[in-house]
Each structure stands twice: as C-alpha cells, then as structure tokens.
C-alpha cells in the first residue's frame, strides 16, 4: 500500500506543492507520499488552508479585548455581550466558485459561513454580504449579479436566517474575478461555546449530514492514466448547496448541543474531511483514525483520495462522549440526517485512514500542521498620489451633480438586491437593510446587535495603509451611527497574487492601517478569511479588505436610523470638513478621474466624534443619524431625505472652500445628526472639542440648496431607485 512511490515532485507541483514543500512532506512522512497523502498535504498547505503568505502579517492584528471570548483560529470569533450571551460571527469568501457558477457559488458560500457559526454552538440570526462585481458594461456582469443575488437569497431564505445588510460595488478590476463575501452572525450562551480540539482517546468520531460525493475535488482527475486510478470523469469543482439539509443540520446540531454529548465539532468546509479531521486532531494534540468504508457516500467506487478531498456540502464531523452515540443517533434520525461513526480519537498523534481494510494514509498530524510552510514574501510600497487642489475643480451645478451621483452604480439604491433576501424572518429585525447598519434584537428585553459590512477598495488601491485604516473606521462609524457600541469585527482580505511584490505591498499596507485603526478604536478582529490570487490574466482586483462589524445596543428602542423624522428639526454636521476630493466618487463619476490620495484618517478625531454622536443618541437627543462616506456631505443629506420623503432647507455653504469640494469631498470622521434641540447638541459638541454646526432644517418635500435650484425628494428618489432595476431588466 505504500505504493505512492510514483508520486513525483512535478506531479506534486500540479497539486500546488512547490518542490521545497514536497521535500518537506517527504521528510515528515519518511517516504514519498502516496496519492491520498499527497492530496492531504497539498490541501492543508494550500494558501486557503495554511494562510502561508498572510500569516506573519495577520499575527500583527489586534485580536483581544475585555469582551473577546475567542479570537481567530476557531470556526468563528466569539464576543461576550453580557447577561450570559455571546455573539459568534465570521465572514468568508466564495469568490472563484461564484464567478464560475454564480448561483451555486454564492449559495454554498452562505451555507459554509452558516456552518462555521452553528458549529460553535450558536443559532445563526443574521447574514450579510459584500459583493463586488465588474463594470456594469461588462457582458457577464448582469448574469453574475442575477445569479449571485438569487443564490444568496435562495440559501438564506430557505434556511430561515434573515439577510439583513451588505454592500455591492462595481469596478472593472472585478470583471474577471468577482468577490462574494458572506458574513454570518449567531447567538450563543457564553458558557456553551463548542470548539474543535479533539479530546479523549478512544472517543468516537461521528459524521453527520449530507452524503459525500465527488463534487469539489480539485485536481482529482489528474490521477488518471499515470496512476491507473478510477477517479472517473471530470466533475465541476463548484459544489451544489442544499439549504434544506442545512436547516435540518442546524436544528439537529443545536438540539444535540443542549446536552453534553459533544466533545468537539468541526464543519467540513474547504478540503472537506481532510481539513476537519486534521484540524481537530492538530488542535487536540491527538491522532484520529478513520475507516473510510463507513463514510456515507452518494456514489460508488470512491477512492480514499476522493473521499478525503470531496467538498460536498452540509456535512459535520464531531467527537462524542462515549456512551452518547445512541442519544445523538435519535436526534439525527428525528431530523432525517445520515450519520455514521467513522472513526475514533487516538493517542498516536497520527491521521490514519483505512479503506477496504488497508491503510490508505498515515501522516503525523503535528508536523503536518506545525511545519506548514510560512512565507515572508517580498513586498513593495507604492508611491502615494499627489494631492488634488480643490480650487482646480471645474465649477458645476451641485444639484445636477447630486442627481448623477445618486443614479451612479456605486450609490444607486440596492433595493433590487435586498428585497430578494428575506430580511425579516425570525422576527427580530429592528432596522432593515438600506441604512448604515442593520439592527437585530437578541433578547426580549430589547438588547440588540448592529451589523454592517464595509470596504472602499479605491482608497486601498491608492494608499493601502490609509485605506486599511479607513475601512475599519467606516465600519466603526456605521455601527456608531445607529447608536451601537462597536464590539469587534471580522475581516475578509481579498487581494491579488501575493507572489507579486506590489500586491503583497497592498496586503501589508492594508494590514498596517487596519491594525492602527483597530487599536485606536478598541475594535479587535476576532475572525477572518484571506482570499488571494484574485486575478485574471495578470489583472488583479482592487485590494478589498472587507470588514464585517458587530456592535451592541443595550436597548433597541434607542437605535436610530437615517430617515428624517420631523419638520422643523435641525440637522447638524459633526466633524471637520476640509474638502478632500482625491479618490472621491465625485471625481470618479463626474470628472472621470481616479486621481489623488484617499482622505486622511484621523483616528483620534474618529474616536472623539463617534463617541460624541453615540452619547447624544443615548441621551435621546438624536432623531436620525447618518455617517458621511461615499459621495460626501450632499449625498448623505439626500440619503436622509430619501429615506423619509421629507425635504431639507440647507444653510449656505461656508465660503472658504470651493462649493463642490465642500459638498462632495469625502473627509472622514463625519456624521449628520437630526435633532430638535440643536442648541444643546452644539454646546455639548463644543464642550467635547468636537466640530459641529447646524447645516439645515427639515421641512417640505424638496432638497433646497441656496444658490441652486431646489429638487424634489421624489425626483432624487426616482433617480436613485431606477438604476439597478433598469440595468437588470435590460436584456
């Protein structure tokens, strides 16, 4: 059976192992790996499973805090939210599969992230997405948008977890490589979190869920003539999702978790049974023996290689307390799920696989995990772009510019997307999609979570460090704008080929900026995912570190949204405006220029201004609030008006800046706040050293800017709502 001797370095290279990595594998094993062993090394040492290019940089990120129960390294991060409750969350990418087969790629992305969360003992309570598509003019974009959106909806709607928020952007850099990131948030008891470390030699290893098929086996067909294997015909590498089975799996696992049967649990995600078994054994410092003849199979004649590397969906691996198998079996039978005891925990520290009574693989787990390659890849910082003098802007009518911006793909309403998501099921959605952050009630007493996903890729491209800081700050700001205390975040690092120094430089710079912002804002990273090699024909995507933020509200009744509430209220601009137009949407959409650096990020000002706004919301002085981001001041004003249909009479812009730099610049650390008590709010801001001044009064049905034509809120809304449905309806 040690007949793997015909596995050569060049064959290993086809599996993605470098020559050096192959030699390391040979030395760990003490012999040339057979095909199954090679497949396991290749999978575990892949970029996806090993984080070999990103690890040394990810280690620099802040991951701890007084509320953090579990940081990166488990299936999802866990944060204490008081009263014995914990929030469990993670974001994950499914970029490549979604480009190949958008519906199933996106659907299984949702399925995978749901499993990461309920594996830890949490009931999933919300899904968010972050979608980045190519240019709307690209011939595939419409098809990809339609497929991805229906795939996310198709899965989330069926399992009955609301999809409550997200973001969607378009840029030609994603033409050949779209991004589909999905975040899941779950709720657990803080003292009932389940982990993946194997324990208790002799304990049974149980497989539950869908049967294993040949789907998702990467490179299985390479083992054809050369190995005389019966690997069979080439299958699509995109897995097929079954949300109905997932729903049963959620209910069965959570029911089993109410007792004490489970010692350890891990879902089978990327690299399937391989990574789940290896991670469980590795974390526990133990061995696992699997009898592959007992794995429930969907098709006949599957080899050990295929069984171990199948990425069939909706499967879990668990280690049970001895004697609890029957109880577990009753629950799985109730939920009509396949299950089998497929092995046991051992003291050997080795992963031993048997099939047809023979040993198919025998690998020491410690070195497989501990000696995985780690690379410090060369990287290069890009020169920063020269600043843009706002006085050089061509004077243009601001209201016409506003109309164009609101109808542009980045700012146009994404209602067409989120109306396809059931955002209300479970009956706890306090603030629905379309605002700065969704708010989900988590206790009958009204405790609630604020949730948002964010990224501004064009900023990260222009200045990775500043862009990295900005995305964390914007996430923090979005949670603050609904009145929440930002708790922690999960990051999805989507970049190009890390073997290119300029791409690695983007990664390193983004991590630096994120680190600075996380530290300054006490906003740790508790889970995440890295997706590299997002490029086609040498064209890399914009660097896209997506942040999924989670915040806490003691009482959902104090949450605010962006809709203007009362005629006669004042609207106050909080934060300083310097008219920074570099990298702005105004520049891109109106002047067709992507020049200039992104706006500076003053983290002390972010903190101070955000803490002030949150304090005012808690004091009950704020009727509506909105953070300023893409499109700047005037776009934010319009969004508040459109959300309610109420108009606003703006004060004349201060004369010191060119008008459109003031109206459309994207200076950071700013909020708009509606209040009926402007004197108190402005005085409190003054006392706190926070810039704040009244910029308008709510009333009427038009947005009125002195010196320009007024425009009805209805007309703005029509422009804002029309683009995406119109685009999708075009054949």
């Amino acid at each position: 059976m040690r007949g793997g001797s015909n596995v050569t370095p060049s064959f290993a290279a086809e599996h993605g192992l470098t020559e050096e990595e192959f030699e390391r594998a040979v030395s760990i094993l003490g012999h040339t790996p057979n095909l199954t062993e090679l497949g396991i090394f290749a999978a575990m040492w892949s970029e996806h499973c090993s984080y070999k290019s990103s690890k040394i940089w990810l280690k620099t990120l802040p991951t701890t805090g007084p509320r953090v129960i579990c940081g990166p390294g488990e299936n999802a991060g866990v944060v204490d939210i008081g009263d014995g409750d914990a929030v469990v969350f993670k974001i994950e990418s499914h970029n490549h599969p979604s480009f190949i087969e958008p519906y199933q790629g996106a659907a299984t992305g949702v399925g995978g992230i749901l499993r990461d969360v309920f594996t830890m003992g949490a009931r999933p309570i919300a899904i968010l997405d972050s979608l980045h598509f190519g240019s709307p003019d690209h011939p595939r974009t419409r098809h990809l948008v339609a497929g991805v959106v229906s795939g996310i909806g198709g899965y989330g709607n069926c399992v009955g977890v609301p999809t409550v928020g997200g973001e969607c952007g378009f840029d030609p850099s994603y033409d050949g490589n779209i991004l589909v990131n999905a975040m899941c948030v779950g709720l657990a008891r803080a003292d009932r979190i389940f982990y993946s470390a194997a324990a208790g030699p002799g304990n049974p290893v149980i497989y539950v869920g869908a049967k294993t098929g040949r789907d998702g086996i990467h490179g299985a067909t390479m083992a054809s003539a050369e190995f005389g294997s019966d690997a069979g015909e080439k299958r699509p590498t995109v897995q097929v999702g079954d949300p109905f089975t997932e729903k049963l799996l959620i209910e069965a696992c959570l029911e089993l978790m109410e007792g004490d049967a489970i010692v350890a649990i891990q879902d089978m995600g990327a690299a399937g049974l391989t990574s789940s078994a290896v991670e469980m054994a590795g974390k526990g410092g133990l061995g696992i023996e699997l009898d592959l003849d007992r794995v429930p199979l969907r098709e006949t004649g599957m080899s050990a290689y295929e069984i171990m590397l199948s990425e069939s969906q909706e499967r879990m691996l668990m280690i049970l307390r001895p004697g609890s198998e029957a109880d577990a079996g009753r629950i799985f039978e109730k939920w009509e799920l396949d299950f089998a005891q497929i092995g046991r925990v051992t003291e050997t520290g080795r992963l031993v696989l048997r099939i047809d009574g023979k040993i198919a693989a025998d690998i020491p787990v410690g070195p497989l995990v501990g000696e995985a390659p780690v690379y410090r890849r060369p990287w290069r910082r890009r020169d920063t772009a020269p600043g843009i003098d706002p006085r050089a802007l061509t004077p243009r009518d601001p209201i016409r510019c506003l109309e164009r911006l609101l109808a542009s793909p980045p700012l146009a309403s994404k209602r067409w997307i989120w109306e396809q998501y059931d955002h209300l099921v479970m009956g706890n959605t306090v603030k629905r999609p379309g605002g700065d952050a969704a708010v989900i009630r988590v206790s009958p007493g009204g405790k609630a979570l604020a949730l948002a996903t964010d990224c501004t890729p064009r900023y990260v491209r222009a200045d990775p460090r500043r862009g990295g800081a900005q995305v964390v700050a914007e996430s923090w700001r979005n949670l603050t704008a609904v009145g929440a205390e930002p708790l922690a975040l999960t990051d999805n690092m989507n970049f190009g080929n890390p073997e290119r120094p300029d791409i690695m430089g983007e990664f390193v710079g983004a991590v630096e900026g994120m680190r600075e912002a996380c530290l300054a804002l006490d906003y740790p990273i508790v889970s995440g995912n890295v997706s590299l090699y997002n490029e086609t024909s040498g064209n890399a995507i914009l660097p896209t570190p997506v942040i999924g933020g989670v915040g806490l509200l003691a009482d959902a009744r104090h949450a605010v949204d962006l809709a203007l509430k009362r005629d006669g209220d004042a609207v106050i601009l909080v934060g300083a405006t310097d008219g920074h137009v570099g990298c702005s949407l105004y520049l891109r959409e109106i002047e067709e220029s992507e020049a200039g650096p992104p706006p500076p990020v003053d983290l002390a000002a972010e903190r101070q201004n955000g803490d002030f706004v949150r304090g005012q919301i808690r004091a009950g002085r704020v009727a509506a609030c909105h953070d300023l981001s893409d499109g700047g001041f005037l776009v934010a004003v319009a969004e508040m008006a459109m959300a309610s249909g109420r108009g606003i009479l703006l004060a004349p812009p201060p004369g010191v800046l060119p008008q459109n730099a003031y109206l459309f610049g994207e200076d950071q650390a700013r909020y708009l706040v509606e209040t009926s008590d402007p004197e108190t709010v402005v005085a409190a801001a003054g006392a706190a050293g926070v810039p704040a001044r009244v910029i308008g009064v709510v009333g009427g049905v038009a947005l009125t800017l002195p010196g320009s034509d007024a425009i009805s809120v209805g007309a703005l809304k029509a422009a804002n709502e029309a683009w995406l449905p119109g685009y999708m309806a075009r054949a």
Partner: protein
Amino acid sequence: MRAVIVVFPGSNRERDVCAALALVTGHEPIRVWHRDAAMPESDLIVLPGGFAYGDYLRCGAMAAHSPVMQEVRDRAARGIPVLGICNGFQILAEAGMLPGALLPNRSLRFTCRDVHLRVENNQTIFTCGYEAGQTIRVPVAHHDGNYTADPDTLDRLEDRGLVAFRYCGPDGALSEAGNFNGSARAIAGIFDNSRTVLGLMPHLENVVDPLLGGTDGRAFFEGLVGALQ
C-alpha cells in the same frame, strides 16, 4: 386559547408566529413536530411559513402528503380553525383544503417587502379585529405567492365572501403596482367555505411590535384569540 403550531422539516417562521401568539395570549403555543404520534387538542392549528421539505418538488407539495395533514384535515372538518401562512397557505392549497394554487411571483424573484392589504371580509374569526375595507401594511417574503384559480372558482370566492385580503395601494385602491406578485384579482388570502380555514401569503406575525416596523398584524391575532376564547 390553545394553539398548536405544526412544524415540518424546513419550516422556518414558526418562531415568528409563536411570538405573535404569545404576545397576545400571554402564553407560548404548543409546537408539534410533524411526525409526533398525537397532536394535542387545540382551539387553533397553525401551519407556519418556511420551505417545508425544501419546497423541492413544488411549494407545499410534499408537506401536503405528510401524515400529520390527515389529522389537520380531520380537525378542520370538526371545525377547528386552521391558519396557513405563506408556506402554510401553499400546503393548504396543495392538500386541497383551499382552492387554487400559488404560482411564482410575476417578477420570478423572491420578494421581501412591505405591501398594503385591504381587509375584504371582517365577519370571520380571523379578521374580526379589523374594520371591513381597512387598509393595513404588512410584509411579504415569498417566491411563489401568485394566487391563481379558474374563473368560476374566483367568482365563487368573491360571491361567497371567501376573499380575506387583497393586495392594494397605500390608499386601499386596487392597482397593478399594488398587486406586486400578479395574483388573480389581487387575492392575498382566502377562506374555505366554512371560513374557519384561512390561507394567506403576507406575514401578519412579523408586524405585532412597533419596534419591528409596524403593528398592523396585532389586530389580527387579538381578534382571532378573542373569537376563540
């Protein structure tokens, strides 16, 4: 008032309707797993929303043949009220307990949004909390809610006052835009002949709390619970 919620594999809005009933009655309804041997006696049976059996064959088709449905049918025949919401409506239609069928929405897309409904008949245990002709705002969340039936059936439903709710505009007027999913005669919910079985697509159970975007569903549950007490 004792309510039983029948949970199928794939049901997913059972918590929502439990919460709405608990809010009004002050106690939790009984959840019954579809394979449980005996269904407890109750004053109301609810088939909740979701995707029973994944809706893989046709919405509601497999659940309609679940053994528990014979019990539901028998009790309905004895006059026990049955409420089917969304997937529950689809199941009642597939089971033949309500006429007609629910086809894919006109847009061919899943749609989750607030819509307006007009209360067509308030002389029933289900709708007695509303005024006749009242307009209410409630969410929908479905892919297959486009009600259809042959013209004779539709005429009969209308003649006998068996139309419970119709989709309408904010002012209560019927319109093409208001009837967002393309339902025949804008029908959103219907009664059986005895008016003790109601199937409807919208989720009244999701608008019983001002915190969650509306309270227009509250009168439905208050009226129903009051009528059954």
